[in-house]
C-alpha cells in the first residue's frame, strides 16, 4: 500500500467535511482564475483596441485627462474639453505625420435612460488613419444628414443602406449611407456622421474632441511628438496611443485592486477552513496516529501523511476551481463590462488560458502545503505513550 492510498482513504472517512473544505479551495481557485482572466483580458482588449487595431499612433487632446473625457462621453454626454480645429493643419504639416483625423465625439441618452448612442463626427481622413475602418455596404456620406453605422448598431436597428433613423434626443432624422465591416472594436457600436454635422449638433463649430495622428514611421514617434509639442500651445497634450491605453488601464486599477482583494479574502477563508479541518482530523485521530507510531511510523511519515491528505483535498478543490473558473469567466466578463466606468473595449474582456489555470492550481496547492504544516506538525509531535495513557 502507498501512503497516498492511505491518505485518500482517510479523506473518505469524513466525505462531507472533505467536500466542504475542497469547496472552499474550489471557490478560491475559481475566483483567482476568473480575476486573472479578466485582468489579462481587459488589458489585452484595451491595448488591442487602442494600439494594435486603430493604426493611430498619437492623439492631440486638450491638456487634462483625455480618459476622463472619454468616460464622460461613454456615460452619455459631451466632454467639456476640446481642441481647436485649426490644429489639424498644424499636425498635417508636421514632418513625419502621414495623416491627421479630426473627430468630435458625443453621446446621447434617451429620456428614459434605457439607451445611449455614441456619435462620432469624422472627415474622410479616417480612411488614411484607420485602415481597419472599412465600409462593407453602401458608401461615404451623401450629405450632412447621412450616417455610417457600426456593424453592431446596424444589426440592433435592423438598418439597411438607404433606411432612415430618427434620434429622439437630437430630434433629427438621418439617412443610412453605409454600414461598416464588423471590427470587434468600439467602432461596431458607433454612429459616424460628417464632422461639420456633429459640431453643429453639439454647438461646437470649429472645435474637436481630439485629433488622431498617424505617422509615416513609428520609430520616429518620440521625435515627431517633440516637434508637435513645440508647434502647439501648452494647453494641449500630445500622447501616444500606448500611453493612452496605459492611462485607461490606470483607471481600471481600483477595480483591479478590488478584484484581487476578493481573491485574497477567498483564499484567507479557504486557508482558515483547511487549517481548522486538518486540526480537527488530527485531534480526532490522535489514538490512531499514536498507534501508527507504535507500528513504526516516524515523525516524517506522519508529517507526510497529513500533508498528503491536505494536498489531495487542495488539488481536487483546485482542479474543480479552474474548471469552474473557466465556465464562469465569460459571465464574469459580461458582468464586469456592465459595471465598468470609463473605457470599455468592444471585444471580449475575459481571457482564460492554460497558464492562468496552471497558476491558479499552483496557488491552491501551495496554499494547501502551507495549511498542512501546522496540523501535520501537531500530528507528528504526538507521543504515542501519552496519548494511549491519557485518552
Amino acid at each position, binding site marked *: *500500500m*502507498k501512503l497516498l492510498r492511505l491518505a485518500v482513504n482517510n479523506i473518505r472517512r469524513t466525505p462531507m467535511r472533505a467536500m466542504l473544505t475542497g469547496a472552499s479551495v474550489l471557490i478560491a481557485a475559481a475566483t483567482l482564475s476568473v480575476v486573472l482572466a479578466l485582468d489579462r483580458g481587459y488589458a489585452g482588449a484595451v491595448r488591442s483596441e487602442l494600439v494594435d487595431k486603430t493604426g493611430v499612433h498619437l492623439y492631440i487632446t486638450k491638456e487634462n485627462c483625455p480618459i476622463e473625457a472619454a468616460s464622460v462621453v461613454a456615460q452619455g454626454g459631451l466632454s467639456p474639453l476640446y481642441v481647436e480645429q485649426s490644429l489639424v493643419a498644424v499636425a498635417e504639416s508636421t514632418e513625419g505625420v502621414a495623416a491627421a483625423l479630426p473627430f468630435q465625439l458625443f453621446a446621447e441618452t434617451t429620456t428614459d435612460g434605457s439607451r445611449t448612442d455614441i456619435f462620432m463626427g469624422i472627415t474622410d481622413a479616417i480612411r488614411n488613419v484607420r485602415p481597419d475602418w472599412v465600409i462593407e455596404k453602401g458608401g461615404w456620406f451623401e450629405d450632412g444628414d447621412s450616417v455610417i453605422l457600426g456593424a453592431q448598431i446596424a444589426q440592433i436597428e435592423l438598418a439597411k443602406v438607404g433606411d432612415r433613423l430618427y434620434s429622439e434626443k437630437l430630434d433629427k432624422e438621418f439617412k443610412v449611407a453605409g454600414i461598416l465591416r464588423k471590427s470587434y472594436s468600439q467602432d461596431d457600436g458607433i454612429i459616424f456622421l460628417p464632422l461639420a454635422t456633429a459640431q453643429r449638433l453639439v454647438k461646437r463649430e470649429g472645435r474637436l474632441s481630439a485629433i488622431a495622428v498617424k505617422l509615416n514611421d513609428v520609430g520616429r514617434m518620440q521625435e515627431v511628438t517633440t516637434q508637435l509639442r513645440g508647434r502647439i500651445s501648452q494647453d494641449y497634450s500630445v500622447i501616444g496611443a500606448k500611453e493612452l491605453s496605459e492611462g485607461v488601464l490606470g483607471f481600471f486599477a481600483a477595480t483591479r485592486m478590488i478584484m484581487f482583494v476578493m481573491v485574497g479574502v477567498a483564499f484567507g477563508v479557504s486557508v482558515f477552513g483547511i487549517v481548522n479541518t486538518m486540526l480537527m482530523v488530527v485531534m480526532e485521530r490522535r489514538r490512531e496516529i499514536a498507534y*501508527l507510531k507504535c507500528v*513504526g511510523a*516516524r*515523525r516524517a511519515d506522519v508529517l507526510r501523511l497529513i500533508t498528503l491528505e491536505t494536498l489531495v483535498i487542495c488539488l481536487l478543490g483546485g482542479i474543480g476551481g479552474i474548471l469552474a473558473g473557466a465556465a464562469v469567466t465569460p459571465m464574469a466578463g459580461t458582468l464586469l463590462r456592465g459595471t465598468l466606468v470609463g473605457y470599455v473595449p468592444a471585444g471580449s474582456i475575459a481571457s482564460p488560458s492554460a497558464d492562468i489555470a496552471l497558476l491558479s492550481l499552483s496557488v491552491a496547492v501551495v496554499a494547501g502545503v502551507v495549511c498542512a504544516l501546522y496540523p501535520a506538525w501537531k500530528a507528528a509531535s504526538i507521543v504515542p505513550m501519552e496519548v*494511549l495513557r491519557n485518552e
Partner: protein
Amino acid sequence: MNKLISLENVSKRYRRGSEEVHALDGVSLDIAEGDLIAICGPSGSGKTTLLNIAGCMDHASRGVVRIRGEALDHGGERRLAEIRQSLIGFVFQQFFLIPTLTVEENVELPLLFSHHKADPQRTSALLERVGLAHRRRHLPGQLSGGEMQRVAVARSLINEPKVVLADEPTGNLDSRNSAAVVELFESLNRTGIAVVLVTHNPDLAARCRKVVHLEDGKVVA
C-alpha cells in the same frame, strides 16, 4: 533462551497535570524467545507503562532497557522506530483498524512504514493463521469484535516480530471471542514468538508460563 528485551531496575515517573505519577519503581524483567508472560495487577499499577517501555514506545526515567543485549540510552526516534518495526508487534484493547481499508490492507499497514513490499502470500498465510482468509476483502465495519482483534493480531505479525506485546487484548471481547484470541496467542507462542500479555483476566493469566504481578509500580510476585 536468548534474551530479547531486558528491563533492569527500571523506574518511570511522569506528570499528569499537577500530579507526579510514579508509574514504575525499580522493576526488572527479562523477555526471552518463546516466553509466554502475563503482567497482572490492579488499575494504575503500572502494567501498561511497563509494556510501553519494553516496547520502545516510552523511555525509562531510571534503569536500563536492553534490546538483544544493546542498552537503549534514550536512542533517537529513528532507532526506536526501527526496533519497533523489526522486533516487536503490538496488539491493543482497541483494535485501531483503519475503517476504510480492507482487512488485507490493514494487515499490510505496518509495511508502509518499514518500507517493505507487501507479499500477498505472506498476508494470505497470516489471515489463514487467524482464520480470516475468507474475510480479506471485508472492511472492519463488517467484522465482529473478535474478528477485528484477530486482524489486529495478524497485523502485529506482518513484520515478523520476535515478540508480541498485547495490552488487554481481550478487554473488549466476549468470552467466546476471548478464548479464540487467547488460543491464537498460544499458537503463536508455540512457533517461538514471545508473547507478553497485560491482563486483568485471571483465567488468561493462568494459561501463561510466567506471571508478573505489579502493585504501585513494583513487582510483588
